[in-house]
């Protein structure tokens, strides 16, 4: 009993010395939990040898202890963010002008015909850029999105292609489906509120388009498109400027563990 207590006490006392074998960057990242482990289970002589080898390994590979930056943004990420914000601005401009021109608001006469025509151009351009953004999103965030949300991004891009081609009756339901599938993965990239906001904005827009919301479906559609759906793209773009979370840059070869079956 006394020997066991002496052994435990000696092991605990040696813990700081054992941890100091590791480089400072490693200790900053793993030091606390490593000390906790050694105090929970005092190391045997074999464990101490193992710690020596571990410390040597950490000194040979100092990058292992370095804390990875949480996000790594490239120029491409900034461009992607800018493109998403542009989509939002263009859609909002388009829908805003059309909404003002609607007879319901009594301001149709003050909106110039050329301005209305230009707004449709803005909407068309917004749709085209949205397609590029969705494909870029699927490519850049393939790990975060996973298979389902990547499929959602492709479906949403296809939907934009259909709406740009004026096949709204098919495009908008497909856009809802794509955005719903994209939502869970998107939440990992831009946060839950932004992703949920975009899913809800899309779904409500579809309901308004098909006249399920109140009696003035079309008017509500333009208002919603300009005041909510467009801004949801702006909100999507803002966090995209930070880029994805850091991942290892080193590509690894096929594992020796992968054994072919017969």
């Amino acid at each position, binding site marked *: 009993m006394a020997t066991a207590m002496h052994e435990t006490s000696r092991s605990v006392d040696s813990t700081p010395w054992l941890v100091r074998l590791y480089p400072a960057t490693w200790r900053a990242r*793993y030091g606390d939990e490593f000390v906790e482990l*050694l105090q929970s289970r005092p*190391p045997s002589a074999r464990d101490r040898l193992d*710690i*020596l080898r*571990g410390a040597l390994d950490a000194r040979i590979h100092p990058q292992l202890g370095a804390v990875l930056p949480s996000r790594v943004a490239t120029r491409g990420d900034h461009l992607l963010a800018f493109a998403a914000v542009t989509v939002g601005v263009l859609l909002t401009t388009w829908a805003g002008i059309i909404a003002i021109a609607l007879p319901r608001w009594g301001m149709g006469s003050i909106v110039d015909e050329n301005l209305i025509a230009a707004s449709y151009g803005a909407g068309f351009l917004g749709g085209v850029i949205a397609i590029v953004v969705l494909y870029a999103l699927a490519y850049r965030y393939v*790990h975060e999105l996973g298979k389902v949300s990547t499929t959602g991004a492709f479906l949403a891009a296809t939907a934009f292609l259909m709406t740009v081609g004026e096949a709204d009756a098919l495009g908008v339901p497909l856009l809802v489906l794509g955005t719903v599938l994209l939502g869970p993965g998107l939440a990992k990239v831009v946060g839950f509120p932004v992703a949920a906001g975009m899913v809800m904005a899309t779904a409500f827009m579809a309901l308004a388009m098909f006249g399920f919301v109140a009696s003035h479906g079309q008017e509500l559609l333009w208002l919603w498109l300009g005041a909510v759906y467009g801004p949801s793209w702006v909100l999507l773009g803002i966090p995209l400027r930070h880029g994805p979370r850091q991942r*290892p840059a080193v590509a690894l070869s096929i594992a020796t563990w992968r054994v072919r*079956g017969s």
Partner: protein
Amino acid sequence: MTEPLGEIGRFAEPSLFILASLGEGPKHGYAIMTDVEAISGQHLGPGTLYAALARLERRGLIAALAPEDRRRPYKLTGLGETTLRTLLEGLSAFARTGLRRLGDAR
């Protein structure tokens, strides 16, 4: 898509044990160490454990959760789960082949 363990070198086997342990749910270092002993019968030294954890974390196969006191739990990422499944299916196919050949030899 999987991140293989081939270039993890001598830490490939401990890494597989750690991934298998985390397959059950998040665990901190001490819990991983005891669980690996229970499921594999192999002792995982503290130095080896943390060398493997650092490599797995850096490759995005596991992720650290918020610390509980000084203990920090780790969990499998989606990539880690896929990788573990691929590795285990590969080992399973290898085991089946080996056992069948043993049977054929008799």
